[in-house]
């Protein structure tokens, strides 16, 4: 009987199971789990261990309800999704002006690993390409590498509400084989865009990509941004409210690698993907989506994850600029009512 003290959270977790919205997500899961297009990332052996059938969908609302379907507890490495959130931490550490002086916010249309810097200012184009993310990681404060890593992990904890670890084999492989990233870092050092503690910063960058998350964490990352930077479940602030718009707008313009333009047009939800198979997407003020399926398209985005986001955006009118009445009313589907009681 003692756990009935937390009646509210228990009833809300049950409502999340029985809600028509979860049923909608189950049907999406059924619909797309049969799609086996794409390939698991294999540039390091650890990533190639991912099972192609893994598939989880999680949605967290800004009211704090969480809907999970499929493999939502399966851990994987966050990879590039970390870049958006570390950008937020850099903004908190240094403010907008200074961060912008080191990293631009211009979409490139180039692949994530391109070695291109702005010819006039020598800045990397945006914090979502590898060069920009390394320059951003360089800005994270801390007396030493350990402290900087700890600050980063604590930041993720504020967003997701749970402790995070890094996958050491992934980190070590990335570190051992990241010649291209190392080259980019030295190129930026040459232009004075990053500090001289290159090895420490590269370690931090490889570590941030190796943070272990699950689909639920990805939903909480974006649900927190959707909720103005405050985790809607724990009510803890994860990001200074002044910088919420910075992070979300860069996700909209640059979050989906060189597929960002088409994504903004079709789906219209600021999002970030990672080669681990994750996507986190935001409907500001409403909800955050986390998807996990390691089968990637040629641009490095999760094939099933894209489809799930496309369907959710269309059916519930989650496109940022949508004004038409969507097929489904989000609140009605979350709360459930007699008309949706489809037995």
């Amino acid at each position, binding site marked *: 009987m003692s756990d*009935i003290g937390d009646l*509210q959270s228990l009833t809300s977790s049950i409502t999340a*199971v*029985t809600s028509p919205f979860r049923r909608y997500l189950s049907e999406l899961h059924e619909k797309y789990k049969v799609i086996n297009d794409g390939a698991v990332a294999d540039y390091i052996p650890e990533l190639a261990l991912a099972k192609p059938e893994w598939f989880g969908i999680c949605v967290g609302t800004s009211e704090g309800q969480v809907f999970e379907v499929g493999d939502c507890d399966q851990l994987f490495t966050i990879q590039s999704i970390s870049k958006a959130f570390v950008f937020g931490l850099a903004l908190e550490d240094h403010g907008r002006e200074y961060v912008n002086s080191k990293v631009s916010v211009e979409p490139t249309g180039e692949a994530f690993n391109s070695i291109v810097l702005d010819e006039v200012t020598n800045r990397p184009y945006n914090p979502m390409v590898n060069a920009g993310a390394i320059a951003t990681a360089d800005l994270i404060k801390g007396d030493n590498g350990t402290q900087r890593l700890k600050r980063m992990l604590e930041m993720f904890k504020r967003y997701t509400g749970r402790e995070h670890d890094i996958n050491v084999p992934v980190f070590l492989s990335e570190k051992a084989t990241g010649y291209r990233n190392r080259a980019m870092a030295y190129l930026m050092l040459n232009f004075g865009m990053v500090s001289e503690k290159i090895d420490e910063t590269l370690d931090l960058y490889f570590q941030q990509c190796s943070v272990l998350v699950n689909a639920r964490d990805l939903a909480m990352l974006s649900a927190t941004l959707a909720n103005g930077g405050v985790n809607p479940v724990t009510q803890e602030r994860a990001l200074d409210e002044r910088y919420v718009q910075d992070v979300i707008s860069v996700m909209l313009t640059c979050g989906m690698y060189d597929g960002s333009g088409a994504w903004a047009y079709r789906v219209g939800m600021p999002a970030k993907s990672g080669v681990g198979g994750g996507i986190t997407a935001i409907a500001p003020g409403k909800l955050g989506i986390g998807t996990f399926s390691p089968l990637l398209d040629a641009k490095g985005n999760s094939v099933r994850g894209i489809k799930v986001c496309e369907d959710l955006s269309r059916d519930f009118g989650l496109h940022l600029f949508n004004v038409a009445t969507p097929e489904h009313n989000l609140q009605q589907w979350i709360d459930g009512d007699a008309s949706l009681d489809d037995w």
Partner: protein
Amino acid sequence: MPKVVSIHSYRGGTGKSNFTANLATAVAMQGHRVAIVDTDLPSPGIHNLFGLEPEQTGKTLNSYLWSESSIEDAAYDIGDSLGIGEPGKLFLVPSSVKADDIARILKDGYDVRLMNDGFRNLVKALQLDFLFIDTHPGLSKETFLSIAISHVLILILRPDKQDYQGTAVTMDVARQLNVRKMLLAINKVHSKLNPDALKQKVEETYREPVAGIFPLSEDVVQLASEGVFCVQFPDHPVSQEFIKVAQRISEA
């Protein structure tokens, strides 16, 4: 549209399984397609009333929850042996009585999401009109689920103080979960109590209707857990009371 009816009691020993078996049978006899799911995984029992032996039930609700079978493969047609004629149907999804299986449930619990999906799959696969859920007594995450998805929640209580209090707690939870319809059934009512006065008092206290009052009946006790009373003694006043409640459920 199919209806989900959950039968719950706050404490054990209220006659919940007996009540579920009789009510579901009475509803099936009125020509409906009915299934009972025994979600009392820690202490299953309702299969006894239908004469279903553990040897006959290779697949159980446990098999489904552990992804070893579909839920409809664990559903047994028990209508024929009870003499339920077309178009009526009665199925039972039993829980495992194997000690190892019960231990595993007690240790690990189960995924309520899977249970929710299972109920829905079963209703579709067997084209059910009614799904009866026999629950484990008390309040847990698992019983919360059954309560939350019910179209009708029947709470069974005996006329004693502990049951009164527990029922009030359960009703608070049910209201939080936006249960559409609640009915009370008072069981094991001593012959000295005036049933009409009892009904009035209970309805006033809980502000929900009493659907049936069942006496502390030696006839029922005698049959105990060996058969479905209203099949064996269709003309008995207790059976008539079940038919009355069944009518109410069908029309709800």
